[in-house]
């Protein structure tokens, strides 16, 4: 990476002047923390006492038998406190906020996992907290909205643009340019202006460090392939960093295929051919945009993957051929989720289920003495409404109707 935050031709910091000094301060605080071995030790300690690190690597015996190919291991980021890998980034940035002496944090959220993690961190560290969330995402991830509010955060409904993640990011920036003195913007993924991609990737690298060690302990060798879903790319970068130096390990990023790559209703920036280079939200990457540079409406059943841009680090690794990109459709995701629940008793988040889809497509063709890792970035509890709806679950519907009647009667 260059000192201006470029990964190959991707990245940079296209920020308004009013934030220039704020970014200088953040870059310095991050550089100091990175130099300071004590900081990382404290971070690991915090994550192992407040969250559940190291998260286990689970051998999925039944799924392995079912597909009859390589051994399937699952990295259990769902067992982090708050239920997803998002906590890794958030707690790390929280420690930086303390160092910088700021008192208020803001964040965008799509699936609500990053919002819940930020609200949790704010409660623990004693920060004021405001979360920006698109109206469409609020509707589909309602349980997380409830928890954010209960944790003491203010949740602001974003009604501009496409009312999803990118619009929440814009609103968070608008807040930040107004209150940068006391506020830190806890960006939730490896996107945005430098130093966010590098910083978030650093905190998330804890996933890959553990996974590399664990697979060697349990399986005795490195895996053949590693699968991760890619929204902004933070869980993927997290686990990939444990294997980037081993070219024999193939890294596979799985984007949201939505209704299919040909449908125009997806969020695949790198898989497929709809993405093109652009500059928005403070950085340069591959975006889903029209010929004139207007961002497009994206679609995915998974709110956390429903985003127009992708990490500049991953765009670079894609361009260099180090990471292969695939897409999983909404329908495939539901099937993979169902199978994983039935076979392993695990409930992956809709986002994470994208990684399972691609692994399931390939694993039967890999020799049985090989292994693959699927990064289970989060748990599916937050998706109960969406999943119940997709399965058209009769008893759940009855329950919701009864509950509705109960509230109406009062």
């Amino acid at each position, binding site marked *: 990476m260059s000192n201006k935050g470029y990964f190959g031709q991707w990245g940079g910091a296209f920020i*308004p*002047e*009013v934030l*220039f000094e704020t970014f200088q301060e953040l870059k310095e605080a991050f550089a100091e923390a990175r130099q300071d071995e004590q900081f990382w030790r404290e971070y690991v300690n915090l994550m192992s006492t407040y969250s559940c690190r190291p998260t286990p690597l689970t051998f999925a015996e039944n799924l392995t038998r079912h597909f009859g190919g390589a051994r399937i291991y699952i990295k259990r980021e769902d067992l982090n406190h708050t239920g997803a890998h998002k906590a890794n980034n958030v707690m790390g940035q929280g420690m930086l906020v303390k160092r910088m002496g700021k008192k208020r944090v803001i964040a965008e959220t799509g699936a609500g996992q990053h919002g819940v993690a930020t609200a949790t961190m704010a409660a623990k560290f004693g920060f004021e907290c405001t979360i920006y969330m698109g109206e469409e995402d609020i509707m589909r991830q309602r349980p997380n909205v409830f928890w954010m509010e209960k944790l003491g955060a203010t949740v602001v409904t974003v009604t501009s643009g496409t009312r999803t993640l990118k619009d929440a990011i814009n609103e968070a920036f*608008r807040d930040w*340019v107004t209150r*940068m003195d006391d506020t830190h913007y806890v960006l939730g993924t490896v996107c945005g202006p430098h130093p966010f991609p590098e910083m978030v990737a650093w905190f998330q690298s804890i996933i890959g460090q553990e996974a590399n060690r664990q697979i060697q302990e349990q399986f005795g060798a490195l895996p053949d392939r590693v699968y991760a879903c890619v929204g902004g790319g933070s869980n993927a970068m997290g686990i990939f960093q444990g294997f980037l130096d081993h070219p024999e390990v193939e890294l596979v990023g799985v984007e949201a295929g939505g209704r299919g790559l040909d449908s125009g209703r997806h969020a695949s920036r790198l898989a497929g051919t709809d993405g093109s280079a652009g500059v928005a939200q403070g950085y340069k990457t591959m975006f889903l945009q029209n010929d004139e540079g*207007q961002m497009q409406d994206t679609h995915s059943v998974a709110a956390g993957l429903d985003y127009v841009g992708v990490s500049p680090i991953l765009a670079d690794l894609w361009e260099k051929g180090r990471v292969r990109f695939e897409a999983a459709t909404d329908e495939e995701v539901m099937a993979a989720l169902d199978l994983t629940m039935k076979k392993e008793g695990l409930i992956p988040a809709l986002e994470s289920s994208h990684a399972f889809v691609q692994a399931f497509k390939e694993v039967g063709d890999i020799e049985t003495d090989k292994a693959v890792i699927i990064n289970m970035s989060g748990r599916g509890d937050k998706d109960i409404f969406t999943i119940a709806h997709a399965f058209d679950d009769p008893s759940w519907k009855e329950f919701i109707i009864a509950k509705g009647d109960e509230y109406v009667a009062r």
Partner: protein
Amino acid sequence: MSLAEDIKQIQSKQDKKILLMTHIVLGYPSFEVNRGVVRQMVENGVDLIEMQIPFSEPMADGPVIVKANQDALENGTTVAQCLEFAAEITETYDIPFLFMTYYNILFKYGEEDFFKKAKKINIKGLIVPDMPPEEGETYFSRARKYELAPIMIFAPTSTNARMKNLAGYGDGFIYCVARKGVTGTQTSFDDEFNNYIGRCRQATDLPLAVGFGISAREDVDYLIGKADIAVIGTKTIKLVEKKGVDSVGLFIKGLRR
């Protein structure tokens, strides 16, 4: 003639205490309304106009301009139409016009082609809030090559050293953002502001334009002697929304004695 020369000429010829620059969002609510608004503005003495090419992610703008961008795009406004409209307007009126937009619009059009086109249709300068000098190697060299003033932005958070550095890249005038935040909320003109504008003055010999939250004659009056150009943005957009195109002229006239 360059933008800097234009501004000097307006200042000397017309003996104005302060110049006025106004802002429109192209295609909002329609090009037809844009046409009427520009006419009212020019006929009532506006000295410069910035025309915003709408972008789907207007990060530095407040709610009113965000909505204007969004509505313009939903109406089907394209960059191509904006360029065509701008060509017509610069043909019609003899004041300097600038483009304001976000960098992706230039990037997707092709930076070189965009500068070439803007020059060809007699645009005098560009305001691109997400283009800092650190990212602008080709942007600034092309601005020089095509003699389009790259308008640099100062903010209250800019240090003196930073202002000096920024001014070195700029031409035409400096856009001094009056306060932190996005477009559209009122600015309080107090000691803190005076101190800031003093620092701006120290940092550059270029004319100073002050924008963000200027909405009334008192604001413009206050800036006389402190700045060279007062920028009216959100206010006229709201005015057109509420009272229609014909209300613009009187409002503009009332901003200066």
